[in-house]
């Protein structure tokens, strides 16, 4: 098991990985996504929360089998609102192509088909 210290360091690294290489900051210019979120009065607090949520979702995506760099890139392509929506739902949100229940579906459908044909 990971110690709390390692977990903490991982979080810090994750946050810096998300923020540093991708976010281009121009001196003095207020970015468009901040403007779009400006209706939320405390935009700084919102920005901090968004950063934490991004790190969370990123680690949840790693738990789903992505390497850290890829996970950070993919989370970066989402809007703050999308990150919020996804947080904590990665293992339950619909994932197109396959569902862990498919084997049961096959069994049940076959059973239904057989029952209709041979009853």
């Amino acid at each position, binding site marked *: 098991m990971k110690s709390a210290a390692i977990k903490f360091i991982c979080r810090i690294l994750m946050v810096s990985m998300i923020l540093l290489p991708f976010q281009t900051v121009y001196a003095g210019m207020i970015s468009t996504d901040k403007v779009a979120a400006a209706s939320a009065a405390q935009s700084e607090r919102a920005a901090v929360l968004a950063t934490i949520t991004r790190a969370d979702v990123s680690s949840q995506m790693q738990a*789903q089998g992505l390497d850290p760099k890829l996970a950070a890139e993919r989370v970066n392509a989402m809007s703050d609102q999308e990150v919020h*929506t996804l947080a904590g739902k990665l293992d339950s949100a*619909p*994932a*197109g192509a396959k569902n862990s229940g498919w084997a049961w579906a096959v069994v049940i459908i076959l059973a239904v088909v057989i029952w209709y044909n041979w009853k």
Partner: protein
Amino acid sequence: MSGLLDGIRKTARVLAGVFFLAGGLSGCALIIPQTDALHRTWPADLAEKAEVPGVPFYPQEDYQCGPAALATSLASFKVPVTPDDLVDKVYLPARQGSLQIEMLAGARGYGMVSYELPQSFEAVLREVAAGTPVIVLQDYGVWPLRIWHYAVVAAYDKTKGEVVLRSGMKENLVIPFSVFEYTWKESHYWAMVTVPPDRLPVSAKESDYLNAIVAMERVAKPEAARTAYATFLGRWPDNVTASIGLANAEYALGRVRQAELVLWGAAERHPESVIVLNNLAQTLSDQGRTEEALQVIDRAAEAGGPFAPTVADTRLAILKRLGKSP
């Protein structure tokens, strides 16, 4: 595997047909309300038949209908991309599938705007009629089990009552409106399009589409963001956020003078916007017009508001340039 899935789909279709017939007795509006509504009143300005030209087909490998559907949508607008390229962007190994939000996010890096459509059959048909293929999320499972699947609507025909999908191993999967709606409604009628930045989806709504562009701006090249904001402003010229976005994109491209002109226009329409004034002052200062910049930033400082700390920083930098103390 795909043979088996096809089998399941066929069975699901048969079952859907059974439900449809059963629905006919009790009023099918309950089971397929939107198909029912379209049958009653077809919108007068909607073509009865349409096909998006040049929608490619990528037979799907195991579980990878997400990357395949997204590649179909992107490549139909000549984005050079294959499903394999998209596996790293939208496929989630442990889930053996792709999440809806990632389908939206995955297109942005290519400078395309991803837009989630309203939950409406008519909206899907309108996009197809306008030449935009539509990605839909269907459920081929039988309650309570779900088999989620992405497909791309490429054509429809009102007289035959059919839609044509690129789906799985089928290049032209033709299914009745009713069956399509039955398999689609479980995803709460989830549908999305990816459009080039110089194009607007027919069903684009001002605030939703603006959010779609802002989300793209995070990861796309500034050229794409600039085009998208300019196109948006062509339709909604009064939107101040889009003007700020356009100016930011120009600024990111090093076209400071262009950014300044956009912001002057925005400041005229929205004299109360602190952000416009702050960014305008910055562009003026960058061009060495420090006195002008100071006048503008003073207006912003008077207004206050949530961006006051940033405004104060900008003002401080301008004063330093002038060699004055604050």
